[in-house]
């Protein structure tokens, strides 16, 4: 049987970084939803918004999101190396 150890109050800096990356990954789609909905609130003063501007904005957002995800996912590395299965979902800071 695996000895049940007390969860540590603090984790090592490497694990701390990985956990923060996970937090970032969690928030990423929400930021995405917010940004993608943003063009809906553009315009005003009778001036119509140009499709090309929206297109550039959307692809820009898209690209940035992909880039952030790529960087954060890479920082996480192999999940099983650092995520203790016992308290994988408990947030230990």
């Amino acid at each position, binding site marked *: 049987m695996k000895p049940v150890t007390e969860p540590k109050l603090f984790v090592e800096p490497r694990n701390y970084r990985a956990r923060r990356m*996970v937090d970032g*990954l*969690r928030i*990423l*789609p*929400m930021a*995405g*939803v917010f940004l*993608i*909905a943003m*063009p*809906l609130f*553009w*315009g005003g003063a009778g001036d*119509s*918004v*140009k*499709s*090309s*501007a*929206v*297109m*550039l904005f*959307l*692809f820009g957002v*898209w*690209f940035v*999101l*992909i*880039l952030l*995800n*790529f960087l954060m*996912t890479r920082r*996480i590395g*192999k*999940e099983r190396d650092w995520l203790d*299965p*016992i308290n*994988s*979902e408990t947030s230990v800071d």
Partner: protein
Amino acid sequence: MLNLLIGVCLAYVIALFAVAFWAERASMQGRANWLRSPMIYTLSLSIYCTGWTFYGAVGYAARSGLEFVTIYLGPSLVLLGWWWVLRKLVRIGRVQRVTSIADLISSRFGKSNGLGVLVTILAIVGTTPYIALQLQSVTLSFGAFANSESLSNNTAALWLGAGLALFTILFGTRNLDVHERHHGVVMAIAVEAVVKLCALVAVGVFVVWGVLGGIGPVLHEIDTSKVATWDVNGNRWIALTFLSGAAFLCLPRMFQVLVVENADEGHLHTASWAFPAYLMLMSLFVIPIAVAGLKILPTGSNPDLFVLSLPLSLEQDALAMFAFIGGFSSATSMVIVASLALATMVSNHIVMPIWIKWSEHRVREFGDVRRIILISRRFAILLIILLGYIYYWISGGGAALAAIGLVSFAGVTQVLPAMLGGIFWRGANRIGATAGLLVGFAIWLYTLFLPSLGNVYSAAFLAEGPWGIWWLRPQALFGVTELDPLVHALFWSMSLNALAFFVGSLISFPTPIERLQGAQIVNVYDHSPTQRGWSGRAAQSEDLMIMAQRILGVKQARALFQAEVQNQGGQGYLPDPTPEFLRTLERELAGSVGAATAHAMIGQTVGGTSVSVQDLMAVADEAAQIMEYSNRLEEQSRELTRTAQELQSANEKLTQISIQKDAFLSQVSHELRTPMTSILSFAQILRDGASLKGQDQSRYASIIHDESVRLTRLLDDLLDLSVLENGQVNLNIAKGRVQDLIDRSIATVVAGDAAMQMQITCKIPDDLHSLTTDLDRLGQVFINLISNAKKYCDAASPKLQISAHQSGCDVIIDFVDNGIGIPAQDRDFIFEKFARVGEQKTGGAGLGLTICKEIIARLGGEITYLSGHRGAAFRVQVPVNFHAA
């Protein structure tokens, strides 16, 4: 041109077959590692981009501008947020050996086959039009090349369908893998993913740099085109993003590649950024192509075919051909995976349960279950593609079909509440899931699917509702008129679906299996290995072996059983059907036939359905038996310990007695020797010394006499003891008072020693019964005890207290003095023969108490040493009336 087209198509298809065949071979030879790389996984996800998206996105963009991009943004967000849902889905899929989305739902909600059937039907209804759409896109693209002069659309669609069915059957149902993974198919669709991306990017690059003249001019063209302004409907924007994201999770084919074909959770890490990038590239050139098509092509041309007609009109035949192959790839890969996923669902959730029911009593005689599954899958593939073709044929491939993509999405999305609720909420149960699915499905049919068919509802029905009930108008349910029909249907179906799911779960109670599965799936990260178990008592390993061979194949089944035998530490070929083994076996089988079917099959063989009260009682019984057995063992071990202790103390006693005996023998020899020596020497003096005076002579003679008396006494004692021990003593029974007896005894002792300082007190009640026993012998005991007290009591003013009382039929007489008593360690053997305590200042032989003990035993009583008194204390207990033993 047409012949060339068909030739290229055939060549492409043959190349695909070759790739798939080669991948299968490689995987069978164990060289499949790189076939399972994260990039292949990412590319296989691209079956999301079908022929409809390949051609239709440009058409969509030409009609309504940027709105098309929501179809790609939704899945991108889902993958960007992979940590939330996909990670868990993939883990569950791996741990539970999920074979399809219907299997996941059925497995989560207590392996309910009813739910599996419901999801399967929903998926078929939702996917059939989509397959029709793919056939249409390919035939349309054929038409763009050939103007349909020599080949009717229907014929082309039929040939296409047949070819796809052949491919799917060949590579999708070759093997029945426990993981339900198809290397050949995955490799082929990965190749197709590259082809379609390259095709679209090639057309895009050609349009941007070859036709429009660079990025600046493109932006200018966009601003001057008819889609120049951003005027999307906000509701649709949000709803479509949500819908495409949800469909990405719920579409049977997406579930197949995302979860079922996933070989490693790590692949998700790569796919989470690579697939959104793929989607971004796929949509990057859509607007430029649409704008260019609108500008260059004559008005009235079909915008859905801009990708083809643009290069064709610019005389870029090779590029057009490439684009055609891209579209062809998109359509074929979708149809292949969709029909494969649906066929798995149909065979696992519809055919197998029926077959099991039908052959309930004939499993053993019947042929190979494995073959049944494969055959049923092949037929299901044919059937599904045929259904798609029939749908296409009936609908006539008109514009109505173009809208069906989103309708289809909305249909399969009805699984979303049950799926997400199932994996995140332990309280979700079967009743809730069924209610949600039925409600959502019904509303989707009523508000979206039937209206989309065109002429199902009359105008009056649409405007006034059934029987004039205004709040039941199909496109304005409950008076909600301000929403776009698609958003309206999505809004109501999803919200009421979720509500029914939630309320149904709240008010009903789940079965034990549901609760166990719920806990397992929701807490999948906890690695809890326990599942509701089988009681293997009734199961025959041989039956299980036969069944496993039919499903897994002989080799795999043997390997599995052999591994288990080794695991159990047994010998031979068949392991014991322990609950753990049955659980493992069920999971393995579930990989081939789905959770519900595997559950049913094991249940049939084992002859019991999961945990019954009897099982629990049996388990409890077993536990009780084990407890009892261990109690008995403990008792035995305690007894043994006790015996060992007794033996040890007996041994110690024996050793001590032996030492005492040795000591006594030397003492006896000494005792005998001393008087003998005196007697001998004085007798010699008397014999030789004629000159002795008369005074001396008499003194020496009296010494000889005294020593002889002492010798005689010693020998008397020994003789007495020997007589007593051998039971040869003659008792002289008489009646007398205790008081008299004690008085006599004291007098005897005192008489022998006039200088005695001991003070003796007697406390004897007057009403004490007279004793009928051998009074002389009892008196002997009393004398012995009193004289012992006189001899050994070392107090400054020695006192002896004698008290007597009645106790039932016995009389008890205590002799307590005020000396130091007998040390605790010596009390055990003071009654033993030859025992003497401490330093001997008096010349006793150590036989007195032994004789006392023997006498009292003869008289039917008992003499004990009383602890708890300051001095030495003896208790004599004798019966009032002596009965000869």
